């Protein structure tokens, strides 16, 4: 049975019980009132009878007309009163009394009228007649008195009966009132009990259940058997808890699987991970991190200080600076450092970390990894050693060829014309080979990520000027004019590796000069804004054919027309230029029209701090 039905039944029962008892109470009280009323009437009759008796006494003494009429009127009044009552007193016990009284009043009247008649016949006879009349008179008065006495007795009986009835009804009313109170108490108690057992207690159990489950005990179920709404609620709640438990368990399983997979991946990649609460010594290390550092949980409890202690002393300052910088800029860090293993061996580790900020944007946490890159370093070292040896082996014969040819060329008068020409060609090929070796070495460096960048605050117009001057001789030989024209006077200094920047300008100038026909012009211009510096190297040369434009920056790319007029190019120069410029977060692009000329543009970002540094200068 549901709670609604229970409550409806309680209400119905209460209404019925109260109505029922109310009706009974009403009737009982009514009857009591009636009985009291009847008792009043009985007293009224008794008083009337007593008054009639006084009137009779007066009449017997005086035989006056007025007292006679008074008696008759009183008697009639009483008889009428009784008659008017009779339909209301249909009850047996009243019927008999009232009937008797009515008969007695009627008899009384008859006797009285006899008395009146005898009185009216007075003084009409002799002494004997008079005596007889007096005797008759006395007999009638006595009869009247006797009857009056009987009426009084009957009236008393009537009063007693009504009193009895009143008493009975009073008792009944009290009893009913008592029952009424008891029923009310029972209804209240029943309602409270139903509320307690059907609503309050189950809700408390449910609340307890939610608290237990929210504390993490997903096994808990609410024990409620009732089939009402709360029972349904408990059932749904238990189902929900069951699903939650299922989800939680599958989640746990997934987390477990993922954690294992992560640990495996970390072990395979030799990457350990960590988490650090910035500003504290609290750190969490993954298992692999211990292996990377070659220590154990027991020997080294994880902490920020313990982490720093793993870093090789010579690398510590660099590491701490990088970490501090990452925190200050809310950014990240990456550096390679050495770790001295307990057996004394050196291991190379790549540390990476990233700042995690809280809701207010304050750095709260750092997450990062430490990767064992010893093998990578070793491979890199071997690679660079290999390149070093190969380039040395190539340069050695090329260099001696160059020098010997140069000595030979300086003494050309000793050789016939034809031999001189052959010698020149050989020399040019030698130079081309040397340049190719140099360029290939650069490409290997770029692709191996081993380009050494040593930025310093450099005056780029000076570098451009000297590169233009250096190229002057070659340009002159080819009858090409070359000049540097800066658009603005004070070009700001730039934080850049001057050697590599010079290489970039040299490459662009060398291309411009070589691919410009005699009589042409090469010019370099530099300009700047508040955020960048732009350098343009223009020529009036052969230009880049439309179909070759897209691949001009790729390795070994040489435009067809370029290869025709100059055999010396290696096709690596522009690749190197682009790699370097992009390394500096700059951009390189060009505009070209075949047969008219080409302009290469380089744009380099200008750091605000260097700009202010320039302002001070």
């Amino acid at each position, binding site marked *: 049975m549901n709670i609604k039905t229970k409550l409806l039944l309680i209400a119905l029962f209460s209404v019925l019980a109260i109505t029922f008892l109310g009706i009974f109470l009403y009737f009982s009280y009514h009857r009591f009132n009636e009985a009291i009323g009847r008792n009043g009437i009985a007293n009224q009759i008794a008083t009337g009878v007593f008054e009639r008796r006084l009137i009779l006494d007066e009449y017997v003494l005086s035989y006056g007309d007025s007292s006679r009429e008074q008696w008759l009127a009183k008697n009639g009044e009483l008889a009428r009163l009784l008659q008017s009552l009779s339909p209301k007193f249909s009850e047996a016990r009243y019927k008999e009394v009232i009937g008797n009284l009515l008969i007695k009043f009627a008899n009384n009247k008859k006797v009285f009228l006899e008395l009146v008649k005898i009185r009216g016949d007075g003084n009409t006879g002799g002494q004997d007649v008079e005596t007889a009349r007096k005797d008759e008179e006395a007999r009638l008065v006595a009869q009247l008195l006797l009857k009056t006495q009987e009426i009084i007795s009957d009236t008393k009986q009537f009063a007693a009966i009504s009193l009895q009835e009143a008493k009975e009804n009073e008792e009944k009313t009290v009893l009913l009132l008592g029952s009424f109170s008891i029923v009310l108490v029972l209804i209240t108690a029943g309602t409270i009990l139903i509320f307690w057992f059907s609503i309050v207690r189950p809700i408390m159990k449910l609340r307890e259940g939610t608290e237990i489950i929210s504390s993490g005990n997903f096994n808990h179920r609410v024990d409620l058997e009732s089939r009402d709404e709360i029972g349904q609620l408990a059932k749904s709640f238990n189902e929900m808890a069951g699903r939650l438990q299922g989800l939680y368990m599958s989640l746990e399983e997934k987390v477990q699987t993922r954690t294992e997979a992560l640990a495996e991946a970390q072990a395979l990649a030799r990457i350990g991970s960590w988490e650090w609460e910035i500003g504290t010594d609290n750190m969490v290390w993954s298992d692999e991190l211990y292996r990377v550092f070659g220590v154990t949980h027991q020997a080294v409890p994880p902490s920020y200080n313990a982490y720093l202690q793993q870093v090789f002393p010579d690398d510590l300052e660099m590491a701490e600076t990088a970490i501090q910088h990452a925190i200050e800029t809310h950014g990240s860090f990456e550096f390679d450092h050495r770790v001295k293993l307990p057996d004394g061996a050196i291991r190379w580790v790549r540390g990476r970390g990233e700042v995690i900020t809280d809701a207010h944007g304050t750095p709260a946490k750092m997450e990062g990894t430490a990767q064992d890159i010893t093998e990578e370093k070793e491979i890199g070292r071997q690679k660079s050693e290999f390149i070093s040896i190969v380039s040395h082996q190539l*340069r050695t014969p090329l260099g001696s060829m160059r*020098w010997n040819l140069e000595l030979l060329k300086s003494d050309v008068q000793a050789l016939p014309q034809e031999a001189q020409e052959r010698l020149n060609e050989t020399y040019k090929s030698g130079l081309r080979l040397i340049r190719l070796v*140099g360029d290939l070495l650069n490409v290997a460096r770029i692709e191996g990520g081993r380009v050494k960048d040593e930025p310093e605050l450099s005056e780029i117009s000076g570098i451009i000027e000297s590169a233009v001057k250096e190229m002057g001789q070659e340009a002159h030989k080819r009858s090409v004019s070359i000049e540097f024209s800066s658009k603005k006077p004070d070009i700001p200094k730039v934080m850049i590796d001057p050697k590599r920047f010079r290489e970039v300008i040299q490459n662009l100038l060398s291309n411009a000069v070589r691919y410009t026909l005699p009589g042409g012009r090469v010019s370099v211009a530099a300009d700047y804004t508040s955020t960048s510096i732009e350098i343009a190297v223009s020529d009036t040369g052969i230009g880049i054919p439309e179909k070759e434009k897209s691949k001009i920056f790729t390795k070994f790319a040489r435009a067809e027309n370029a290869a025709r007029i100059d055999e010396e190019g290696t096709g690596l120069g522009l690749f190197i230029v682009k790699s370097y410029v992009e390394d500096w977060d700059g951009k390189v692009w060009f505009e070209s029209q075949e047969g008219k000329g080409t302009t290469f543009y380089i744009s380099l970002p200008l750091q605000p701090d260097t700009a202010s540094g320039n302002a001070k200068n």
Partner: protein
Amino acid sequence: MVKKFILVAEDDKAYVGVYRSKLASEGYEVVIVEQGDLVVPELKKRKPDLLILDLMLPQKNGFEILEELRADGKLKSIKVVVATNLSQDLDIERVKKFGVLDYFIKSDVSVFELVDKIKKALAD
């Protein structure tokens, strides 16, 4: 005028010939040492005005020689020009720490350029 004395540490015959003829024609006294381990004893025998040092030498390489030189009070002041075919940044950096006057990659420089630089170095 006394001839300036240049000691050349070089093992490659093709270069030795060039050094010998070119430097002699420029009026220098030239001694060639072809083995690394003989360089320092030679320097001790007679202190040159300039040492032209190759880095890849048999027995003892140029780096070791430079280290020894810089540790020796008497030889510390000798002017050194490195002429080699090692072109890696690391090598260049390592050598520059020893305070040499110049570093030439032989294949990348013409013999005339080299001689010009040597002349300047000896004139200073």
